[in-house]
């Protein structure tokens, strides 16, 4: 079976080359035959990638230890569902998943535009197929998941205990769907440049594809944060870890693009900038995979030893240089059709918002890669972690929050003094009021107050926009307010979907503020019957149990949780010792309320029989997850905006 897997990948490689060559020939000559063959080759690569995934899954589920990948990432006592998710536990499997999603995007793209005869869409498929050459080549010649061991071991090394979590079964595929999806906007952008196409129709299609993968990437990032929260046991959800940063960077640039693309659609401006943002988003998504898979983060030396690191770096350099060269070559095509009317306008605010998005990405990129650069230059190993990012990224993010409120209420073209007064006075007053009210509740320092001001400012502007929309329509005077809001959203899904996303962002900011600045922490060794006090809670240790759980020994502290002298629950904080790795893993106990989480960890059992209990109160952390859900809702609403597009298509 391993030979069949290797053959599938090799054929995938050959078909990818054929797809690129055939489409290129068709585009050059104008013959439709080669274009059709090229499209079929893209479909074939998808089928071959699926076959390879099925074959590897079969080996993983059967625990066929003759496969090196299976022996390295599973064990016989590993539960079946985790054996299935081992596909994305290691480098080769992750790359195979990348290829499957990439080729699925290629096929989905061709299916979506199957009725369009314009060779432009073939050019997009050609760009996707070019990236497929890289991944099939990597999986065929450099990092094959179908390598066979001469002497299969009796049992495997087991799956990393951190990955034995239900969240890890869905987080990577969703994240990858976001990451890889940026190939389609990149394909569009490169096709426009290659074929020297003008017009703005493609930009609406790009916006929709970008919104789709941006939404998936956002959900993937949040799922990763949730996983870190419940699995890592340090009381937080975002540690500015390089892997987290790798996924955040394309999301940030993608967000910037989703804003500036509106200027191109409405005013025919910032074309070069938009294409550059699309290219940067794609390069960052490849860079994210490079960062997590090349070993470069461990040290410069492990990068040099990595079998895929240099290949990825070369691919990023070549594709980045090619994209830049094309942009410069087609500079005339990307010239603005309009000029700016005034600095204080929505266009102006979007431009500054883009500067902040790119600056935030740059700061994250610099902080993530700087340890390697510094080690290479000075020879000394350093760390650039949360303490750095909290100082550098937070002020930039707060400036973005303020612009989130300002941008939508500025008029297109020119914001007059009366517009500024009408739109800014009330939000500013509300912001100051909110910050003033928060101060007696413990909000101190510049950042928390700016965050509260910004949150109130943004929410007020959104409410004002909704109120104005309802007032302007005057269509359903008798309808209840919620019905009017729904009607309004339905009429302009894109605009109000965007406002809902902004509401989600505000909730996220407030959640982050509450759970970081107002977090409380207490720890103590407890013997049975002893109590730990934290805020309004009293945690009493009822006892410690030990039991075998599939492939781990689970030690559990049973904690009675009282609030104001009243028992509100019994929670179980555990430590799992996995048989294969002998690595102790934390299993957090969470006592959830809408206002705060009581987060409990068993540090371990001491020699005197006491249990080390650590507890945190994380206020408003629900808003982080709630904000994420609101953002998804807003994205779905904005994505469903098809009526206007259909109208435009009929008209034109």
């Amino acid at each position, binding site marked *: 079976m391993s030979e069949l897997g290797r053959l599938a990948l090799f054929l995938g490689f050959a078909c990818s080359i054929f797809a690129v060559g055939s489409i290129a020939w068709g585009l050059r000559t104008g013959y439709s035959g080669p274009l059709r063959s090229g499209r079929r080759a893209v479909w074939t690569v998808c089928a071959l990638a699926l076959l390879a995934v099925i074959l590897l899954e079969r080996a993983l589920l059967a625990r066929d230890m003759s496969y090196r990948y299976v022996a390295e990432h599973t064990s016989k006592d590993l539960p079946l569902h985790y054996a299935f998710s081992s596909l994305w536990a290691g480098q080769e499997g992750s790359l195979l998943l990348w290829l499957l999603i990439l080729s699925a995007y290629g096929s989905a793209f061709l299916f979506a535009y199957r009725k369009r005869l314009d060779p432009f869409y073939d050019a997009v498929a050609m760009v996707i197929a070019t990236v497929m050459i890289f991944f099939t080549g990597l999986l065929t010649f450099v990092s094959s998941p179908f390598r066979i061991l001469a002497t299969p071991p009796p049992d495997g090394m087991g799956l990393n205990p951190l990955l034995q979590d239900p969240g890890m079964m869905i987080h990577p595929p969703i994240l990858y769907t976001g990451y890889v999806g940026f190939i389609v906007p990149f394909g569009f952008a490169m096709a426009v440049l290659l074929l020297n196409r003008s017009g703005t129709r493609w930009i609406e299609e790009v916006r929709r594809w970008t919104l789709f993968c941006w939404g998936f990437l956002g959900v993937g990032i949040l799922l990763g944060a949730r996983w870190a929260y419940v699995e890592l046991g340090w009381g937080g959800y975002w540690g500015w870890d390089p892997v987290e940063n790798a996924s955040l960077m394309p999301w940030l640039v993608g967000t910037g693009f989703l804003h500036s693309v509106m200027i191109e659609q409405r005013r025919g401006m910032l074309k070069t900038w938009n294409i550059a943002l699309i290219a940067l988003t794609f390069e960052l998504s490849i860079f994210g995979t490079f960062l997590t898979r090349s070993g470069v983060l461990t040290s410069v030396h492990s990068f040099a030893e990595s079998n895929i690191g240099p290949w990825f770096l070369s691919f990023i350099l070549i594709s980045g240089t090619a994209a830049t060269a094309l942009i410069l070559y087609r500079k005339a095509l990307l010239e603005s059709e309009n000029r*700016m009317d005034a600095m204080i306008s929505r266009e102006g605010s979007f431009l500054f918002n883009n*500067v902040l998005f790119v600056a935030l990405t740059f700061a994250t990129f610099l902080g993530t890669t*700087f340890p390697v650069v510094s080690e290479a230059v000075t020879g000394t190993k350093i760390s650039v972690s*949360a303490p750095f990012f909290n*100082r550098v990224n937070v002020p930039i993010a707060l400036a973005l929050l303020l612009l989130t409120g300002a941008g939508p209420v500025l008029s297109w073209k020119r914001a007059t003094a009366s517009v500024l007064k009408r739109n800014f006075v009330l939000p500013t007053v509300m912001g100051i009021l909110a910050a003033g009210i928060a101060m007696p509740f413990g909000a101190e320092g510049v950042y928390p107050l700016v965050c509260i001001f910004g949150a109130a400012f943004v929410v007020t502007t959104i409410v004002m926009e909704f109120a104005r929309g309802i007032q302007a329509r005057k269509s359903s005077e008798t309808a209840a307010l919620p019905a009017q809001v729904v009607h309004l959203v339905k009429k302009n899904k894109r605009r109000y979907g965007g406002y809902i996303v902004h509401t989600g962002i505000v909730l996220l900011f407030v959640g982050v503020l509450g759970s970081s600045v107002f977090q409380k922490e207490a720890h103590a060794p407890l013997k049975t019957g002893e109590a730990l006090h934290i805020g309004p809670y009293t945690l009493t240790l009822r006892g410690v149990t030990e039991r075998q759980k599939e492939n781990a020994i689970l030690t559990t502290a049973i904690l009675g949780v009282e609030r104001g002298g009243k028992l509100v629950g019994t929670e179980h904080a555990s430590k799992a010792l996995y048989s294969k790795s002998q690595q102790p893993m934390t299993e957090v106990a969470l006592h959830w309320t809408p206002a705060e989480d009581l987060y409990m960890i068993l540090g371990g059992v001491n020699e005197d029989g006491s249990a080390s209990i650590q507890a945190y109160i994380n206020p408003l952390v629900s808003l982080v997850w709630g904000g994420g859900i609101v953002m998804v809702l807003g994205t779905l609403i904005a994505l469903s905006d098809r009526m206007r597009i259909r109208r435009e298509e009929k008209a034109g």
Partner: protein
Amino acid sequence: MPRLMPRRSATLLAIVFLLGTAPFSEAKPRDPAHAITSQLICPCSCGEVLSGCTCETGKTMQGYVENAIKQGKGKDQIVGALVARYGEVIRGAPKPEGFNLLVWVLPFAATLAGFAIAFLVLRRMVRRRAVIPTSQGALVADRGGLSPGRTLEDDLEALRARAEAELRRMRE
């Protein structure tokens, strides 16, 4: 007055970003030990920030910091001792000196440069729009979607040629 704008904006931005050096996580330190451990990294391979680290090494280090504070040692003294033992890698953020100063300066410098460039680009675009000469020497303030720096007749001619070319292509 218009000349003052960039200077004012620059000053405002400088103030905003100088505030950026005030650490967010230290806005309200919970206790002296947390103020120290939240700025350090666990020296084992876990790589977690020490204040939230649950590994054995992390717990030992947290105990060390708490004991050192009880003994009356100051933050600099404790951090200095740990750096001497484990190296610079234990700091969660590098000291802003020498080559490592770059990582602190570049993000803010890049942001300010980005703002300055965006400001200049915007100003140039606004000025260009305000004064676009026609062939008659008159000034046109608003020309919709037409190309800058060319006459209306030029644009009309170009549009006519494009329309004809497209019609020809459609007939073919």
